[in-house]
């Protein structure tokens, strides 16, 4: 419909068609360089096994063309189903933990059972992906597989898998290249095995999907509406998700992580005018296939001049701007969000004091206890003074980062009324990570100061992108999140490309990426604490805004709030906090997601006490994480970012379970 209304504009449909034509042309060009046109058919059907050229075309070039189409279609279909079931355009096939689980399984097997990684790579990845999803499924089960429960559980499982993988990768140092290549989604083929494994799965999806379209279409109503139409809601969700997860898990196991296609294809399908679910499914499959084929062809053409970039990383880079372009045309709808009602603390000051007391006790324990060459040791006050130089700076930096992430997370969550929002989601942490990674790779030498500069530049750049693109929608929460995820995915893809280069310098950066306060000097620790204290002092001034904004746009306006100004300022504050925290403990921001939640569950509802309590909780989490990371695998040390994710994840899930009853 859109296409007929404005014929003069280049619509998404024509862009896709153009991409397809270009990809076909490129493929034909490459083939003709290898073989004369009259031989194509014979080579495809029956290659001469003694001719390298013929086997190359038959066993490598053709499977690669096909796998791009099959994987793209599978991701497109999987993404459409996910978005429909989870009722959010933010969902993609990696949302429910499949990619994270597959990655973790491969990392662990490569480390501990390398022989298995050699002989059954695909099976390991498939099993990992399915186990991770099973976990998500079990967590969301008591919630009757509600969309929010599924997304939250998926997010947490993905985070935890990512953290454990990072810890595993760090302990195994230089053997990471293979894993990075896998994670950046290379479509390189040298036989037909991937096609043979994947095609039946996609075919099954194609046959099963039509049976699900009618009940799935009704799912776009809310739960009550769907139920009143007599829909066995639970089973529809179950079957659809199983289908989508199978598709995602098989693609991940076959070619690794292909970013963005499963997210972008359904989005583009809608932008191109497909409205009804069957149309959207079909269009998403076609668009997904074309996107991936075009990306891969583009990369192979580019490989004539530069070193080849894996397709998965490239689709992220290619897809992000596309989303941004089409998002500009989406109408801005201010939807009122239902606030989550919790019990309210009767004596917030008392509760705050108790939390602060626990916080201080944690600091004391962490400074005194630790293993040494002779076993565990509880240091007396005088002994502790000698150890202070090793234990205090990293503890202080960890605590500061926890507080900063918690503040940032509280603001983002209250402002967007979105329990899934966190500093990482709006892309700031990833921006900082990218800044440091580029500095380390491009500059001959680097100092802590220039790293600080690079990280700040990166986070500010990503912040500016979010701010500029969000301006038109007056920082509409959904739009900010969508842009944030787009920025995030693009940056994450770039990071994957850089890691995939296998340069030895990169391995040093990994340590930081996993969130280590390990080498913090006393001076750096003091600066970190000063920054956290400053932010804590500023935060109370935002109390009223944060009490009012969650009520929605109209009530906020009628209460005299300037929407753009207040949202922009809050965004800036939360981005600076997140950037500072990222500098300290890396881009893992699970604390920013977790601390505000825990604080609210403890009964802190008003913005001011909520922020302060979240800050204390955030600090306590990172202090615990620092302690555990220091002592658990002595003499090896785990980065605080990894540990906080690993301990925070299960706790978060336990909270989720409690909310059911």
């Amino acid at each position, binding site marked *: 419909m859109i296409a007929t209304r404005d014929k003069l504009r280049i619509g998404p449909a024509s862009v896709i068609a153009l991409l397809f034509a270009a990809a076909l042309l490129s493929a034909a060009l490459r083939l003709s360089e290898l073989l004369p046109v009259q031989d194509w058919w014979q080579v495809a059907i029956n290659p001469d096994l003694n001719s390298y050229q013929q086997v190359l075309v038959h066993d490598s070039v053709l499977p690669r063309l096909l796998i791009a189409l099959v994987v793209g279609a599978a991701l497109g279909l999987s993404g459409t189903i996910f978005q429909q079931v989870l009722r959010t355009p933010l969902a993609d096939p990696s949302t429910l933990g499949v990619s994270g689980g597959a990655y973790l399984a491969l990392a662990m097997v490569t480390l501990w059972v390398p022989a298995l990684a050699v002989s059954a790579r695909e099976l390991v990845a498939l099993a990992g992906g399915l186990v991770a999803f099973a976990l998500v499924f079990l967590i969301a089960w008591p919630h009757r597989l509600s969309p929010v429960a599924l997304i939250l559980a998926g997010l947490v499982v993905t985070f935890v898998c990512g953290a454990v993988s990072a810890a595993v990768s760090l302990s195994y140092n230089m053997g990471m290249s293979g894993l990075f*290549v896998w994670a950046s989604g290379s479509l*390189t083929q*040298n036989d037909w095995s991937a096609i043979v494994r994947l095609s039946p799965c996609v075919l099954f999806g194609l046959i099963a999907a039509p049976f699900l379209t009618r009940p799935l279409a009704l799912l776009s109503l809310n739960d009550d509406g769907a139920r009143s139409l007599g829909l066995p809601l639970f089973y529809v969700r179950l079957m659809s998700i199983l289908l989508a997860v199978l598709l995602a898990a098989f693609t991940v196991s076959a070619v690794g992580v292909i970013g963005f296609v499963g997210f972008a294809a359904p989005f583009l399908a809608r932008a191109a005018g497909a409205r009804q679910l069957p149309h959207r499914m079909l269009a998403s499959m076609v668009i997904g296939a074309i996107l991936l084929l075009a990306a891969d062809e583009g990369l192979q053409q580019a490989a004539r001049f530069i070193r080849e970039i894996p397709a998965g990383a490239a689709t992220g880079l290619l897809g992000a701007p596309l989303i941004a372009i089409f998002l500009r045309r989406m109408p801005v709808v201010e939807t009122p969000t239902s606030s989550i009602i919790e019990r309210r603390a009767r004596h917030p000051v008392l509760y705050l004091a108790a939390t602060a007391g626990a916080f201080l006790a944690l600091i004391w324990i962490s400074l005194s206890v*630790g293993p040494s*060459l002779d076993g565990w040791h509880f240091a007396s006050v005088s002994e502790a003074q000698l150890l202070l130089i090793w234990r205090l700076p990293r503890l202080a930096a960890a605590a500061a980062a926890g507080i900063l992430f918690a503040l940032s997370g509280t603001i983002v969550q209250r402002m967007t009324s979105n329990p899934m929002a966190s500093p990482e989601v709006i892309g700031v942490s990833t921006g900082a990570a990218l800044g440091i990674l580029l500095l380390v790779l491009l500059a001959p030498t680097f100092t802590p100061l220039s790293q600080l500069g690079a990280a700040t530049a990166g986070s500010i750049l990503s912040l500016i992108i979010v701010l500029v693109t969000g301006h038109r929608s007056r920082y509409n929460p959904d739009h900010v999140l969508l842009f944030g995820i787009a920025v995030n995915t693009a940056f994450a893809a770039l990071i994957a490309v850089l890691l995939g280069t296998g*340069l030895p310098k990169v391995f040093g950066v990994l*340590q930081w990426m996993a969130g280590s306060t390990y080498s913090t*000097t006393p001076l750096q620790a003091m600066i970190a604490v000063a920054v956290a204290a400053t932010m804590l002092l500023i935060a109370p001034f935002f109390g009223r805004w944060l009490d009012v904004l969650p009520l929605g746009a109209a009530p906020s306006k009628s209460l005299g709030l300037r929407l753009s100004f207040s949202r922009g300022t809050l965004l800036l504050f939360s981005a600076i906090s997140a950037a500072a925290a990222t500098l300290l403990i890396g881009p893992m921001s699970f604390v920013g997601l977790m601390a505000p939640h825990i604080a609210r569950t403890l009964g802190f509802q008003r913005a001011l006490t909520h922020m302060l309590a979240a800050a204390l909780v955030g600090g306590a989490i990172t202090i615990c994480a620092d302690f555990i990371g220091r002592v658990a695998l002595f*003499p090896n040390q785990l980065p605080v970012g990894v540990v906080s994710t690993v301990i925070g994840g299960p706790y978060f899930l336990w909270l989720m379970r409690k909310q059911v009853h």
Partner: protein
Amino acid sequence: MVTINKMHLDVRIRRRTLLASLAASFASGCSLQAAGLPQAPKGEAHRIAALDWGIAATLVALGIVPIGVPAPAWYARYVVDPSLPSSVVDVGLLFTPNFELLQALAPQLIVATPALQQAAPMLQRIAPVYGNLLFQPSPDVLDIARRGTLALADKIGIRTAGERLIEETHRELSISNAKLSSQRDRAFLLASPLDNRHVSLFGPNSLYGAVLQEIGLTLAEPNIAGEFNIVGLERLGAYGNAEMILLESPVVPGMAARLTENRLWRTFPFVCKGRLHILPATLGSGGLPAASRFLRLLRLALSGDDGRTQ
């Protein structure tokens, strides 16, 4: 919990062996003492913590056993030769050596790579840090390794041992040069499998490439800027006349042999004409000891003689 307990037992055992080995090296350290370490108390062996496997290997080749090395178990897998005695204390992970543990070991000198630059301010509080030693592959990797080895030997005050190690490496190079002179007319590919679809293709800036060129052999793919490029397996068939030196990867053991199951791989000229040589793993950032190890393995593969006779 079990693993933690085991770990502690492990640490305690190592502590005991450490003391025993200290006594042992006290006795054997007398010869080294002649070279004289300026800041060392008389009569004590060199107490050096080596925070990188290439540095540790170089130290062992220089006749000094480091007191602490990160993840010695991984050293055994990646470096293989020269092996570390079991007395060496595990000081943690490669990029995060444990400060408290290092301080307990009381080293006189900490030798690190620039990768630990960030930790240097904290390491300085434990002992003087010699931190610009880098055996990472780069242009002139062999020259850098020679200079680095000599500088390290100078720093410890054992210049003669450094010169001897350089001389030994030089001897390995000239033996190989003579033994493999018949291979001059061929071009060599250097690769290592990453998984069943990708390989790292090494260039002249890798230790392996530099060694090959130093003994007068030709690289089939000289246009690789870094240490290696990651390429799809299918690309390798394009090198029609090349000899393939396929280095086993300690990360995916046995993968090199498994590639023969692939039909495309079997059509590659170097596979069907029998010009494929599979070599055990060698650490590319292992300095001169790694270069020597690679040369011996190369001679064994190409001429059936590793020249260990002398």
